[in-house]
Protein backbone atom coordinates (compact mmCIF):
# COMPACT_ATOMS: atom_id res chain seq x y z
CA UNK A 1 0.00 0.00 0.00
CA UNK A 2 1.53 3.30 -1.11
CA UNK A 3 1.50 5.64 1.95
CA UNK A 4 -0.33 8.50 0.21
CA UNK A 5 -3.10 6.12 -0.84
CA UNK A 6 -3.53 4.82 2.71
CA UNK A 7 -3.31 8.32 4.21
CA UNK A 8 -6.16 9.84 2.21
CA UNK A 9 -8.54 7.14 3.45
CA UNK A 10 -7.76 7.75 7.16
CA UNK A 11 -10.76 10.03 7.82
CA UNK A 12 -13.10 7.28 6.65
CA UNK A 13 -11.24 4.24 7.96
CA UNK A 14 -10.09 5.65 11.32
CA UNK A 15 -12.91 7.99 12.21
CA UNK A 16 -15.90 6.86 10.10
CA UNK A 17 -16.29 10.37 8.67
CA UNK A 18 -19.11 10.73 6.15
CA UNK A 19 -20.73 13.61 4.28
CA UNK A 20 -24.35 14.64 4.87
CA UNK A 21 -26.00 16.48 1.98
CA UNK A 22 -27.04 19.94 3.16
CA UNK A 23 -30.07 19.91 0.84
CA UNK A 24 -31.66 16.44 1.00
CA UNK A 25 -29.97 14.96 4.08
CA UNK A 26 -28.56 11.88 2.31
CA UNK A 27 -25.50 10.56 4.16
CA UNK A 28 -22.67 9.43 1.88
CA UNK A 29 -19.81 7.18 2.97
CA UNK A 30 -17.23 7.93 1.77
CA UNK A 31 -18.01 11.61 1.28
CA UNK A 32 -18.47 12.74 -2.32
CA UNK A 33 -18.34 15.95 -4.33
CA UNK A 34 -21.93 15.75 -5.61
CA UNK A 35 -25.04 14.18 -4.07
CA UNK A 36 -26.36 11.32 -6.26
CA UNK A 37 -29.89 11.91 -4.91
CA UNK A 38 -30.34 15.65 -5.51
CA UNK A 39 -27.20 16.98 -7.23
CA UNK A 40 -26.34 19.33 -4.37
CA UNK A 41 -22.64 20.01 -3.77
CA UNK A 42 -22.47 21.11 -0.13
CA UNK A 43 -22.04 18.64 2.69
CA UNK A 44 -21.52 18.70 6.43
CA UNK A 45 -19.20 16.25 8.09
CA UNK A 46 -20.94 13.61 10.20
CA UNK A 47 -19.60 10.56 12.05
CA UNK A 48 -21.28 7.22 11.34
CA UNK A 49 -22.94 5.41 14.24
CA UNK A 50 -21.10 2.31 15.43
CA UNK A 51 -24.07 -0.06 15.45
CA UNK A 52 -26.21 -1.77 12.86
CA UNK A 53 -27.56 -5.09 11.66
CA UNK A 54 -26.18 -7.63 9.22
CA UNK A 55 -28.04 -7.70 5.87
CA UNK A 56 -25.99 -10.53 4.37
CA UNK A 57 -22.70 -12.38 4.88
CA UNK A 58 -20.33 -14.98 3.44
CA UNK A 59 -17.39 -16.95 4.81
CA UNK A 60 -14.35 -16.63 2.53
CA UNK A 61 -12.36 -19.84 2.32
CA UNK A 62 -10.26 -19.01 -0.76
CA UNK A 63 -8.62 -15.72 0.24
CA UNK A 64 -6.41 -13.20 -1.61
CA UNK A 65 -2.74 -13.50 -0.52
CA UNK A 66 -2.79 -10.59 1.93
CA UNK A 67 -5.71 -12.23 3.77
CA UNK A 68 -4.69 -15.91 3.76
CA UNK A 69 -3.45 -15.66 7.38
CA UNK A 70 -7.02 -14.69 8.40
CA UNK A 71 -8.80 -17.38 6.35
CA UNK A 72 -11.47 -18.51 6.82
CA UNK A 73 -12.95 -15.10 7.56
CA UNK A 74 -16.43 -13.68 7.27
CA UNK A 75 -17.46 -10.65 5.21
CA UNK A 76 -20.79 -8.89 5.37
CA UNK A 77 -22.89 -5.87 4.51
CA UNK A 78 -24.49 -4.12 7.50
CA UNK A 79 -27.08 -1.37 7.63
CA UNK A 80 -26.17 1.11 10.36
CA UNK A 81 -28.78 2.73 12.63
CA UNK A 82 -28.84 5.83 10.37
CA UNK A 83 -29.49 3.75 7.23
CA UNK A 84 -25.96 3.86 5.77
CA UNK A 85 -24.68 0.54 4.44
CA UNK A 86 -21.10 -0.66 4.79
CA UNK A 87 -19.03 -3.61 3.63
CA UNK A 88 -16.55 -5.06 6.14
CA UNK A 89 -15.24 -8.23 7.69
CA UNK A 90 -17.27 -9.78 10.50
CA UNK A 91 -14.82 -10.74 13.23
CA UNK A 92 -14.59 -12.14 16.79
CA UNK A 93 -17.35 -14.61 16.07
CA UNK A 94 -18.15 -18.21 15.23
CA UNK A 95 -18.37 -17.85 11.44
CA UNK A 96 -20.79 -20.79 11.27
CA UNK A 97 -23.23 -19.06 13.66
CA UNK A 98 -23.75 -15.88 11.61
CA UNK A 99 -27.33 -14.96 10.74
CA UNK A 100 -29.03 -12.36 8.56
CA UNK A 101 -30.49 -9.69 10.83
CA UNK A 102 -27.88 -10.16 13.57
CA UNK A 103 -26.91 -6.96 15.44
CA UNK A 104 -23.31 -5.85 15.00
CA UNK A 105 -21.18 -2.99 16.27
CA UNK A 106 -18.23 -1.41 14.46
CA UNK A 107 -14.76 -1.77 15.96
CA UNK A 108 -11.36 -0.41 14.89
CA UNK A 109 -9.10 -3.26 13.80
CA UNK A 110 -6.06 -4.19 11.75
CA UNK A 111 -7.20 -5.04 8.20
CA UNK A 112 -4.06 -6.08 6.28
CA UNK A 113 -0.28 -5.67 6.13
CA UNK A 114 2.20 -5.41 3.27
CA UNK A 115 4.53 -8.25 4.23
CA UNK A 116 6.84 -7.97 7.26
CA UNK A 117 8.06 -4.41 6.80
CA UNK A 118 5.26 -2.76 4.87
CA UNK A 119 2.45 -0.41 5.84
CA UNK A 120 -0.05 -1.85 8.33
CA UNK A 121 -3.55 -0.84 7.29
CA UNK A 122 -6.24 -0.33 9.91
CA UNK A 123 -9.94 0.23 9.53
CA UNK A 124 -13.37 -0.93 10.67
CA UNK A 125 -14.78 -4.42 11.16
CA UNK A 126 -18.15 -5.67 12.33
CA UNK A 127 -18.40 -7.58 15.62
CA UNK A 128 -21.64 -9.41 16.45
CA UNK A 129 -23.19 -7.76 19.47
CA UNK A 130 -23.52 -10.83 21.67
CA UNK A 131 -19.76 -11.12 22.01
Amino acid sequence: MFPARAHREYPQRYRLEAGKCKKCGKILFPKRLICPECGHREFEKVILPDAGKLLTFSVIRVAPSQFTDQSPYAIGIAELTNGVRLFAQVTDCDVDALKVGMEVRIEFRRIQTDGHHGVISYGYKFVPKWY
Partner: protein
Amino acid sequence: MRDVVVIGVGMNKWGELWEKSIRDIYVEAALAAIGDAGVDHLDSMIIGCMSGGLFVGQEHLGSLMADYLGQKNLAASRVESACASGGLAFKMAYLEVASGFSDIVMASGVEKMTDVSGDGATFALATAADQEYEVFHGATFPGLYALMATAHMHKHATTREMLSAVAVKNHNNGSMNPYAQYPFKTTIDEVSNSVMVASPLRILDCSPITDGAAAVILTTVDIAKKLGKPIIKIIGSGHATDTIALHSRADLTTLKATTVAAQKAFKMANKTIKDINFAEVHDCFTIAEIIVTESLGIFPAGKGGEAVLKGETGLEGSFPINTSGGLKSKGHPVGATGVAQIIEVVKQLRGTAENGRQLKRQPKIGMAQNMGGSGGSTLVHILEVA
Protein backbone atom coordinates in the same frame (compact mmCIF):
# COMPACT_ATOMS: atom_id res chain seq x y z
CA MET B 1 -29.48 5.02 -37.97
CA ARG B 2 -28.94 2.15 -40.42
CA ASP B 3 -29.93 -1.47 -39.78
CA VAL B 4 -26.92 -3.59 -38.78
CA VAL B 5 -26.50 -7.34 -39.26
CA VAL B 6 -24.03 -9.92 -37.94
CA ILE B 7 -22.56 -11.86 -40.88
CA GLY B 8 -19.61 -13.71 -39.39
CA VAL B 9 -18.64 -15.37 -36.12
CA GLY B 10 -15.42 -16.98 -34.89
CA MET B 11 -13.82 -18.28 -31.73
CA ASN B 12 -11.31 -20.90 -30.67
CA LYS B 13 -11.63 -23.75 -28.18
CA TRP B 14 -11.28 -22.06 -24.81
CA GLY B 15 -9.21 -23.35 -21.94
CA GLU B 16 -5.84 -23.06 -20.25
CA LEU B 17 -3.97 -22.35 -23.48
CA TRP B 18 -0.37 -22.41 -22.22
CA GLU B 19 1.09 -22.91 -25.71
CA LYS B 20 -0.59 -19.78 -27.09
CA SER B 21 -0.01 -16.06 -26.48
CA ILE B 22 -2.74 -13.43 -26.20
CA ARG B 23 -1.98 -12.31 -29.77
CA ASP B 24 -2.24 -15.86 -31.19
CA ILE B 25 -5.51 -16.51 -29.37
CA TYR B 26 -6.95 -13.24 -30.62
CA VAL B 27 -5.84 -13.61 -34.23
CA GLU B 28 -7.21 -17.19 -34.45
CA ALA B 29 -10.68 -16.03 -33.44
CA ALA B 30 -10.55 -12.93 -35.64
CA LEU B 31 -9.47 -14.93 -38.73
CA ALA B 32 -12.29 -17.42 -38.10
CA ALA B 33 -14.84 -14.58 -37.98
CA ILE B 34 -13.47 -12.86 -41.10
CA GLY B 35 -13.49 -16.20 -42.93
CA ASP B 36 -17.05 -16.98 -41.85
CA ALA B 37 -18.22 -13.53 -43.02
CA GLY B 38 -16.39 -13.73 -46.34
CA VAL B 39 -15.41 -10.05 -46.26
CA ASP B 40 -12.26 -8.87 -48.05
CA HIS B 41 -11.46 -6.04 -45.64
CA LEU B 42 -12.40 -4.35 -42.37
CA ASP B 43 -13.08 -0.65 -41.85
CA SER B 44 -12.45 -0.83 -38.11
CA MET B 45 -12.12 -3.23 -35.19
CA ILE B 46 -13.12 -2.93 -31.54
CA ILE B 47 -11.49 -5.14 -28.90
CA GLY B 48 -13.03 -5.81 -25.49
CA CYS B 49 -10.41 -6.70 -22.90
CA MET B 50 -10.66 -6.23 -19.16
CA SER B 51 -7.03 -6.22 -18.15
CA GLY B 52 -4.27 -6.97 -20.61
CA GLY B 53 -2.11 -4.91 -18.27
CA LEU B 54 -2.57 -7.05 -15.18
CA PHE B 55 -2.88 -10.44 -16.87
CA VAL B 56 -0.02 -10.22 -19.38
CA GLY B 57 1.49 -6.74 -18.86
CA GLN B 58 0.26 -5.66 -22.26
CA GLU B 59 -1.89 -2.61 -23.06
CA HIS B 60 -2.30 -0.82 -26.41
CA LEU B 61 -4.16 -3.85 -27.73
CA GLY B 62 -5.72 -2.00 -30.67
CA SER B 63 -2.33 -1.50 -32.24
CA LEU B 64 -0.97 -4.94 -31.31
CA MET B 65 -3.94 -6.91 -32.61
CA ALA B 66 -4.40 -4.92 -35.84
CA ASP B 67 -0.69 -5.45 -36.50
CA TYR B 68 -0.74 -9.23 -35.91
CA LEU B 69 -3.99 -9.56 -37.85
CA GLY B 70 -2.19 -8.03 -40.82
CA GLN B 71 -4.52 -5.02 -40.87
CA LYS B 72 -2.02 -2.31 -41.65
CA ASN B 73 -2.97 1.15 -40.31
CA LEU B 74 -6.52 0.03 -39.46
CA ALA B 75 -8.59 2.01 -36.94
CA ALA B 76 -8.54 -0.29 -33.90
CA SER B 77 -9.82 0.47 -30.41
CA ARG B 78 -9.80 -1.35 -27.09
CA VAL B 79 -12.78 -0.83 -24.75
CA GLU B 80 -13.20 -1.87 -21.12
CA SER B 81 -16.13 -2.49 -18.82
CA ALA B 82 -14.71 -5.31 -16.67
CA CYS B 83 -16.43 -8.63 -17.52
CA ALA B 84 -18.82 -6.72 -19.82
CA SER B 85 -15.98 -5.49 -22.08
CA GLY B 86 -17.05 -7.88 -24.88
CA GLY B 87 -20.66 -6.67 -24.79
CA LEU B 88 -19.38 -3.11 -24.86
CA ALA B 89 -17.16 -3.88 -27.90
CA PHE B 90 -20.27 -5.23 -29.66
CA LYS B 91 -22.24 -2.09 -28.84
CA MET B 92 -19.48 0.22 -30.09
CA ALA B 93 -19.15 -1.77 -33.33
CA TYR B 94 -22.93 -1.65 -33.75
CA LEU B 95 -22.95 2.14 -33.32
CA GLU B 96 -20.10 2.57 -35.79
CA VAL B 97 -21.98 0.74 -38.55
CA ALA B 98 -25.43 2.08 -37.60
CA SER B 99 -24.21 5.68 -37.69
CA GLY B 100 -22.83 5.28 -41.20
CA PHE B 101 -19.28 5.97 -40.06
CA SER B 102 -18.05 2.53 -41.17
CA ASP B 103 -19.50 -0.30 -43.26
CA ILE B 104 -17.65 -3.40 -41.99
CA VAL B 105 -16.58 -3.54 -38.35
CA MET B 106 -15.27 -6.41 -36.23
CA ALA B 107 -16.43 -6.63 -32.60
CA SER B 108 -14.11 -8.84 -30.63
CA GLY B 109 -12.89 -9.75 -27.18
CA VAL B 110 -9.90 -11.46 -25.63
CA GLU B 111 -8.47 -12.36 -22.24
CA LYS B 112 -5.34 -14.34 -21.42
CA MET B 113 -5.79 -15.23 -17.76
CA THR B 114 -3.40 -18.13 -17.10
CA ASP B 115 -0.09 -16.28 -17.47
CA VAL B 116 -0.50 -15.26 -13.80
CA SER B 117 -1.03 -17.39 -10.68
CA GLY B 118 -4.49 -17.97 -9.22
CA ASP B 119 -3.76 -15.19 -6.76
CA GLY B 120 -2.69 -12.89 -9.59
CA ALA B 121 -5.96 -13.61 -11.41
CA THR B 122 -7.96 -12.98 -8.22
CA PHE B 123 -6.20 -9.61 -7.85
CA ALA B 124 -6.80 -8.63 -11.49
CA LEU B 125 -10.48 -9.60 -11.38
CA ALA B 126 -11.00 -7.83 -8.05
CA THR B 127 -10.10 -4.52 -9.71
CA ALA B 128 -13.66 -4.61 -11.08
CA ALA B 129 -14.93 -4.12 -7.50
CA ASP B 130 -14.49 -1.04 -5.28
CA GLN B 131 -10.80 -1.21 -4.30
CA GLU B 132 -11.07 1.07 -1.24
CA TYR B 133 -14.41 -0.02 0.21
CA GLU B 134 -14.71 -3.69 -0.79
CA VAL B 135 -11.40 -5.24 -1.89
CA PHE B 136 -9.39 -3.47 0.86
CA HIS B 137 -11.52 -5.31 3.42
CA GLY B 138 -11.05 -8.76 1.90
CA ALA B 139 -13.76 -8.95 -0.76
CA THR B 140 -13.32 -11.42 -3.63
CA PHE B 141 -15.66 -11.89 -6.60
CA PRO B 142 -17.03 -15.20 -5.34
CA GLY B 143 -17.48 -13.40 -2.00
CA LEU B 144 -19.53 -10.55 -3.50
CA TYR B 145 -21.83 -12.93 -5.38
CA ALA B 146 -22.01 -15.05 -2.22
CA LEU B 147 -23.40 -11.97 -0.42
CA MET B 148 -26.12 -11.76 -3.08
CA ALA B 149 -26.74 -15.50 -2.73
CA THR B 150 -27.13 -15.33 1.06
CA ALA B 151 -29.54 -12.39 0.70
CA HIS B 152 -31.52 -14.10 -2.09
CA MET B 153 -31.76 -17.40 -0.19
CA HIS B 154 -32.89 -15.52 2.94
CA LYS B 155 -35.55 -13.45 1.15
CA HIS B 156 -36.87 -15.98 -1.36
CA ALA B 157 -36.08 -19.40 0.08
CA THR B 158 -33.80 -20.12 -2.88
CA THR B 159 -32.09 -23.44 -2.10
CA ARG B 160 -28.72 -25.14 -2.51
CA GLU B 161 -30.36 -27.55 -4.95
CA MET B 162 -31.53 -24.66 -7.18
CA LEU B 163 -28.02 -23.22 -7.39
CA SER B 164 -26.65 -26.66 -8.30
CA ALA B 165 -29.34 -27.10 -10.96
CA VAL B 166 -27.94 -24.08 -12.84
CA ALA B 167 -24.49 -25.69 -13.01
CA VAL B 168 -25.91 -29.08 -14.03
CA LYS B 169 -27.94 -27.53 -16.87
CA ASN B 170 -25.10 -25.36 -18.17
CA HIS B 171 -22.56 -28.18 -18.11
CA ASN B 172 -25.07 -30.39 -19.93
CA ASN B 173 -25.43 -27.73 -22.65
CA GLY B 174 -21.68 -27.13 -22.71
CA SER B 175 -21.01 -30.84 -23.22
CA MET B 176 -22.42 -30.28 -26.74
CA ASN B 177 -20.28 -27.19 -27.44
CA PRO B 178 -16.96 -28.07 -29.15
CA TYR B 179 -15.50 -24.72 -28.03
CA ALA B 180 -16.24 -25.17 -24.30
CA GLN B 181 -13.42 -25.25 -21.76
CA TYR B 182 -15.20 -27.69 -19.43
CA PRO B 183 -17.55 -29.85 -21.53
CA PHE B 184 -18.03 -32.38 -18.73
CA LYS B 185 -21.46 -33.15 -17.30
CA THR B 186 -22.10 -32.90 -13.59
CA THR B 187 -24.80 -33.76 -11.05
CA ILE B 188 -26.68 -31.93 -8.30
CA ASP B 189 -24.79 -33.99 -5.69
CA GLU B 190 -21.40 -33.28 -7.22
CA VAL B 191 -22.02 -29.50 -7.31
CA SER B 192 -23.61 -29.41 -3.84
CA ASN B 193 -20.65 -31.25 -2.30
CA SER B 194 -17.82 -29.51 -4.16
CA VAL B 195 -15.23 -27.46 -2.23
CA MET B 196 -16.51 -24.31 -0.54
CA VAL B 197 -15.04 -21.08 -1.95
CA ALA B 198 -17.17 -18.37 -0.32
CA SER B 199 -20.23 -19.71 1.45
CA PRO B 200 -22.76 -20.56 0.15
CA LEU B 201 -20.88 -20.71 -3.19
CA ARG B 202 -18.78 -23.78 -3.97
CA ILE B 203 -16.20 -24.30 -6.69
CA LEU B 204 -18.78 -25.75 -9.10
CA ASP B 205 -20.94 -22.64 -8.60
CA CYS B 206 -18.11 -20.56 -10.10
CA SER B 207 -17.14 -19.92 -13.72
CA PRO B 208 -13.49 -20.80 -14.41
CA ILE B 209 -10.29 -18.89 -15.22
CA THR B 210 -9.97 -19.08 -19.02
CA ASP B 211 -7.82 -18.08 -21.99
CA GLY B 212 -9.91 -17.30 -25.04
CA ALA B 213 -11.07 -14.90 -27.73
CA ALA B 214 -14.18 -14.36 -29.81
CA ALA B 215 -15.02 -12.15 -32.78
CA VAL B 216 -18.05 -11.22 -34.89
CA ILE B 217 -18.37 -9.16 -38.07
CA LEU B 218 -21.04 -6.45 -38.34
CA THR B 219 -22.14 -4.78 -41.55
CA THR B 220 -25.06 -3.26 -43.43
CA VAL B 221 -28.05 -5.15 -44.86
CA ASP B 222 -26.88 -4.35 -48.43
CA ILE B 223 -23.42 -5.84 -47.94
CA ALA B 224 -24.87 -8.87 -46.14
CA LYS B 225 -27.20 -9.50 -49.11
CA LYS B 226 -24.37 -9.13 -51.61
CA LEU B 227 -22.39 -11.70 -49.65
CA GLY B 228 -25.43 -14.01 -49.53
CA LYS B 229 -25.54 -14.10 -45.72
CA PRO B 230 -28.62 -14.73 -43.56
CA ILE B 231 -29.97 -11.41 -42.29
CA ILE B 232 -29.51 -11.50 -38.50
CA LYS B 233 -30.32 -7.99 -37.41
CA ILE B 234 -29.43 -6.22 -34.16
CA ILE B 235 -32.84 -4.88 -33.19
CA GLY B 236 -32.13 -3.79 -29.62
CA SER B 237 -29.13 -2.48 -27.71
CA GLY B 238 -29.34 -1.47 -24.04
CA HIS B 239 -26.55 -0.35 -21.74
CA ALA B 240 -26.72 0.72 -18.08
CA THR B 241 -24.55 1.07 -14.99
CA ASP B 242 -25.13 0.73 -11.25
CA THR B 243 -23.04 1.62 -8.19
CA ILE B 244 -19.68 -0.15 -8.34
CA ALA B 245 -19.98 -1.19 -4.67
CA LEU B 246 -22.59 -3.83 -3.93
CA HIS B 247 -23.38 -2.36 -0.51
CA SER B 248 -24.42 0.98 -2.06
CA ARG B 249 -27.45 -0.64 -3.75
CA ALA B 250 -30.93 -0.48 -2.27
CA ASP B 251 -31.68 -4.12 -3.15
CA LEU B 252 -29.08 -6.89 -2.89
CA THR B 253 -31.34 -9.50 -4.52
CA THR B 254 -31.87 -7.85 -7.93
CA LEU B 255 -29.55 -6.36 -10.57
CA LYS B 256 -30.85 -2.92 -11.47
CA ALA B 257 -28.39 -2.27 -14.33
CA THR B 258 -29.63 -5.47 -15.99
CA THR B 259 -33.27 -4.43 -15.62
CA VAL B 260 -32.60 -0.93 -16.99
CA ALA B 261 -30.41 -2.16 -19.90
CA ALA B 262 -33.09 -4.70 -20.85
CA GLN B 263 -35.83 -2.05 -20.75
CA LYS B 264 -33.78 0.14 -23.10
CA ALA B 265 -33.16 -2.76 -25.49
CA PHE B 266 -36.85 -3.78 -25.45
CA LYS B 267 -37.94 -0.20 -26.13
CA MET B 268 -35.58 0.13 -29.07
CA ALA B 269 -36.66 -3.25 -30.50
CA ASN B 270 -40.33 -2.56 -29.78
CA LYS B 271 -40.52 -5.99 -28.11
CA THR B 272 -41.23 -7.39 -24.66
CA ILE B 273 -39.65 -10.32 -22.85
CA LYS B 274 -42.53 -12.49 -24.19
CA ASP B 275 -41.21 -12.01 -27.74
CA ILE B 276 -37.77 -13.40 -26.88
CA ASN B 277 -37.23 -17.12 -27.60
CA PHE B 278 -34.00 -17.76 -25.67
CA ALA B 279 -31.10 -15.94 -23.99
CA GLU B 280 -27.43 -16.13 -23.20
CA VAL B 281 -26.94 -14.57 -19.75
CA HIS B 282 -23.95 -13.78 -17.55
CA ASP B 283 -23.70 -16.83 -15.24
CA CYS B 284 -20.33 -15.97 -13.70
CA PHE B 285 -21.77 -17.74 -10.64
CA THR B 286 -24.87 -19.94 -10.43
CA ILE B 287 -26.68 -17.34 -8.31
CA ALA B 288 -25.99 -14.73 -11.00
CA GLU B 289 -28.01 -16.67 -13.59
CA ILE B 290 -30.96 -16.93 -11.20
CA ILE B 291 -30.92 -13.23 -10.30
CA VAL B 292 -30.35 -12.15 -13.94
CA THR B 293 -33.33 -14.17 -15.24
CA GLU B 294 -35.48 -12.46 -12.59
CA SER B 295 -34.05 -9.00 -13.29
CA LEU B 296 -34.69 -9.45 -17.04
CA GLY B 297 -38.32 -10.26 -16.24
CA ILE B 298 -38.17 -13.83 -17.59
CA PHE B 299 -39.35 -15.06 -14.19
CA PRO B 300 -40.90 -13.16 -11.25
CA ALA B 301 -38.58 -12.10 -8.39
CA GLY B 302 -37.73 -15.12 -6.28
CA LYS B 303 -38.94 -17.66 -8.86
CA GLY B 304 -35.76 -17.99 -10.94
CA GLY B 305 -34.35 -20.86 -8.90
CA GLU B 306 -37.54 -22.88 -9.00
CA ALA B 307 -37.71 -22.39 -12.80
CA VAL B 308 -34.26 -23.93 -13.26
CA LEU B 309 -35.15 -26.89 -11.06
CA LYS B 310 -38.31 -27.49 -13.12
CA GLY B 311 -36.30 -27.51 -16.35
CA GLU B 312 -37.90 -24.36 -17.74
CA THR B 313 -34.50 -22.97 -18.76
CA GLY B 314 -33.23 -26.21 -20.31
CA LEU B 315 -32.97 -26.90 -24.06
CA GLU B 316 -36.55 -28.21 -24.10
CA GLY B 317 -37.87 -25.66 -21.58
CA SER B 318 -40.19 -22.70 -22.02
CA PHE B 319 -37.26 -20.23 -22.01
CA PRO B 320 -33.87 -21.82 -22.78
CA ILE B 321 -30.98 -20.06 -21.02
CA ASN B 322 -27.30 -20.45 -21.88
CA THR B 323 -27.61 -23.08 -24.61
CA SER B 324 -23.83 -22.58 -25.18
CA GLY B 325 -23.03 -23.87 -21.71
CA GLY B 326 -22.76 -20.34 -20.37
CA LEU B 327 -19.71 -18.94 -18.64
CA LYS B 328 -19.93 -21.93 -16.28
CA SER B 329 -19.03 -24.61 -18.84
CA LYS B 330 -17.83 -22.68 -21.90
CA GLY B 331 -15.38 -20.69 -19.77
CA HIS B 332 -15.05 -17.00 -18.90
CA PRO B 333 -12.12 -15.17 -20.53
CA VAL B 334 -13.66 -11.96 -19.24
CA GLY B 335 -13.14 -9.64 -22.22
CA ALA B 336 -14.28 -12.29 -24.73
CA THR B 337 -17.40 -13.49 -22.92
CA GLY B 338 -19.84 -10.88 -24.20
CA VAL B 339 -18.82 -11.52 -27.81
CA ALA B 340 -19.08 -15.31 -27.42
CA GLN B 341 -22.64 -14.83 -26.15
CA ILE B 342 -23.46 -13.07 -29.44
CA ILE B 343 -21.88 -15.99 -31.34
CA GLU B 344 -24.22 -18.48 -29.64
CA VAL B 345 -27.25 -16.27 -30.33
CA VAL B 346 -26.24 -16.06 -34.02
CA LYS B 347 -25.66 -19.84 -34.27
CA GLN B 348 -29.07 -20.59 -32.74
CA LEU B 349 -30.75 -18.08 -35.10
CA ARG B 350 -28.92 -19.61 -38.08
CA GLY B 351 -29.91 -23.09 -36.86
CA THR B 352 -26.27 -24.23 -36.77
CA ALA B 353 -25.55 -24.82 -33.05
CA GLU B 354 -23.39 -27.96 -32.89
CA ASN B 355 -23.86 -31.46 -31.51
CA GLY B 356 -27.57 -31.48 -30.75
CA ARG B 357 -27.84 -28.32 -28.67
CA GLN B 358 -29.68 -26.50 -31.49
CA LEU B 359 -33.13 -25.56 -30.18
CA LYS B 360 -35.78 -27.83 -31.73
CA ARG B 361 -38.31 -25.08 -32.33
CA GLN B 362 -36.23 -22.83 -34.60
CA PRO B 363 -35.90 -19.52 -32.69
CA LYS B 364 -36.47 -16.14 -34.36
CA ILE B 365 -35.37 -13.72 -31.63
CA GLY B 366 -32.55 -14.15 -29.14
CA MET B 367 -31.01 -12.03 -26.41
CA ALA B 368 -27.57 -11.66 -24.81
CA GLN B 369 -26.96 -10.13 -21.35
CA ASN B 370 -23.36 -9.38 -20.38
CA MET B 371 -22.47 -7.94 -16.98
CA GLY B 372 -19.42 -6.32 -15.39
CA GLY B 373 -18.24 -6.66 -11.80
CA SER B 374 -20.95 -7.40 -9.26
CA GLY B 375 -23.47 -5.92 -11.70
CA GLY B 376 -22.03 -2.40 -11.95
CA SER B 377 -22.42 -2.45 -15.74
CA THR B 378 -24.65 -4.41 -18.10
CA LEU B 379 -25.18 -4.66 -21.85
CA VAL B 380 -28.26 -6.30 -23.35
CA HIS B 381 -28.57 -7.01 -27.07
CA ILE B 382 -31.52 -8.44 -28.99
CA LEU B 383 -31.01 -10.10 -32.40
CA GLU B 384 -33.68 -11.19 -34.89
CA VAL B 385 -33.34 -13.39 -37.95
CA ALA B 386 -35.29 -12.28 -41.02
